């Protein structure tokens, strides 16, 4: 029997499977938080959640609605402040960083500031927040995106958060820390990564029921499609049960 699940649940499960045990993840509210909670229960029991305003290592028993809420440091190891957390990331302690945005390009650069001109925008979005810092400091960033050609674009209107910038060597040339940068993009259509040499976005696996062609069509730049493209497993019974019954029983997010 096929299990039913929605798009958000799929994004959460795909993201949860990426994280290794004994690592840490810089997370914002929404999908990343649920993904971290799910990973902690199933795949990475020692995964440590990090919230920018000071919470590290919360049990994530309660789902916060904001990155500064009490629930981000409920029974946590640390409740400090933004400087301490960001400096901890700068010192290389944080493995994963979750990011989002309205636009992404082939090098994983993200826009969450404006559509149009910065001084006179068509759409003003929230701005960087901690995203630029997360994108600068974490070893591996994971972007979670809706996948369509308006969002996966040749040229983003504004570069809020650094991906690989203009390509190989560009992060280092700009002054960003070596060996840090984009790692995965998880979308409603696929999981993507980056080609080692060119630093360009590359398809890794398509979501259940999605074809390679659909992914390519919905990507506004030339996507690298390797000979072997995987197919992601749909959410398992275990994943869905834990997600629905333990992590978000009030269905705040799913």
């Amino acid at each position: 029997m096929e299990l039913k699940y929605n798009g958000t649940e799929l994004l959460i499960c795909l993201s949860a499977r990426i994280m290794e045990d004994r690592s840490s993840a810089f997370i914002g509210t929404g999908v990343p938080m649920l993904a971290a909670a799910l990973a902690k229960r199933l795949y990475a029991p020692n995964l440590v959640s990090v919230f920018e305003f000071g919470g590290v290592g919360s049990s994530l028993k309660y789902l916060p609605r904001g990155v500064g809420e009490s629930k981000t440091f409920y029974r946590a190891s640390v409740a400090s402040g933004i400087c301490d957390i960001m400096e901890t990331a700068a010192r290389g302690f944080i493995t994963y960083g979750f990011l989002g945005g309205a636009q992404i390009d082939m090098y994983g650069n993200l826009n969450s500031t404006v559509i149009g001109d910065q001084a006179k925008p068509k759409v003003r979005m929230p701005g960087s927040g901690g995203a630029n810092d997360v994108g600068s400091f974490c070893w591996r960033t994971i972007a979670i995106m809706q996948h369509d050609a308006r969002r996966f674009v040749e040229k983003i209107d504004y570069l809020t958060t650094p991906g690989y910038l203009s390509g190989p060597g560009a992060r280092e040339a700009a002054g960003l820390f070596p060996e840090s940068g984009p790692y995965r993009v998880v979308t409603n259509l696929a999981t993507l990564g980056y080609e080692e040499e060119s630093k360009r976005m590359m398809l890794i696996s398509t979501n259940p029921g999605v074809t390679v062609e659909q992914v390519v069509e919905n990507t506004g730049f030339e996507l690298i499609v390797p000979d072997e493209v995987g197919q992601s497993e749909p959410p398992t019974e275990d994943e869905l049960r834990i997600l629905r019954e333990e992590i978000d029983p009030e269905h705040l997010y799913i």
Partner: protein
Amino acid sequence: MEILESGLYDLIQPPDIDGLRKWNRENKSMALESKLMSEKEAMERFVSDGDYVGFELYGTCRAPLSLVRELVRQGRKNLRLAGQGLQDVDFLLAAGMVEAMDITYVGYEVHGLSPVLRRAAEKQGVKMVEWSNAALAWRFKAAAMGVSYLPIRSMLGTDTFKYSAGKVAECPFTGDRVMLLPALILDCGVIHVHKADQYGNCMLEGISGFALEMARASKKLVISAEEIVDNEEILKYPDRNVIPYYHVDAVVHAPFGSHPGEMPYLYGRDEPGIMEWLQVTKTEEGASDYLDKYIRNVPDHAAYIELVGGEEKLKELRALSVGR
């Protein structure tokens, strides 16, 4: 110092550490004197037209909203603002009190964009200079350290840098390219804490956000506290005093001062209250009506609390706190 790159904007507040030193010498006293006063007196005395102001922590979490509301009630012109937050920034923008801001993030996280910010940027031409969250906190930290700038390894290579007022130079020890952040000195900083004594010594519980840095970066500093405690508690635990009294100009007793936001260990977030704001601000009129109803037509914080539901509501919010 050779500058490799400069952000496009000019600073909207200069990093004048010499001026901060002189201000502190002339205006701050090391004597223990009561600074207890009302929201009204604090905002009248310590925020002027044209001031550069900032609010900690985060609009819906340990935010000094009773003071922000009082500021809206009094009205103030041409404020410049450290734009990192949610309802605090929204209120001031919606009231048309802001001329320019250093912005890092104004939005409602999972609930999406701030319609108030959108109008301010898209239609009202409020000037916005861009930074990351950490960069803004580090700019306070620079001022708190008594230095005019700090180097960091963030914002590099991005438009967040390009539309800032920062600079890029080489580290003289390693040759690394570093971003240089100018110190940010607030004319008035406003912080909400768990406990303060009458002199202004402060104790926080849970995350400290950027309270310590902002307090020390502020020329004038207004504290609101859920509870006013005896100085004895500070003398017994001086290691928990995160904002020493000599930084503080006013202490306001403001129980539930962060409403509709939450206060760690004391009360939870009033989600319907926040959603109401988000709903009505879809139009300019809606925002204005809200400001009339909940702020301008209400004499003070006590009356506001009555209006939003009084003791019944507070009981409900207390029950939402997740505890330790």
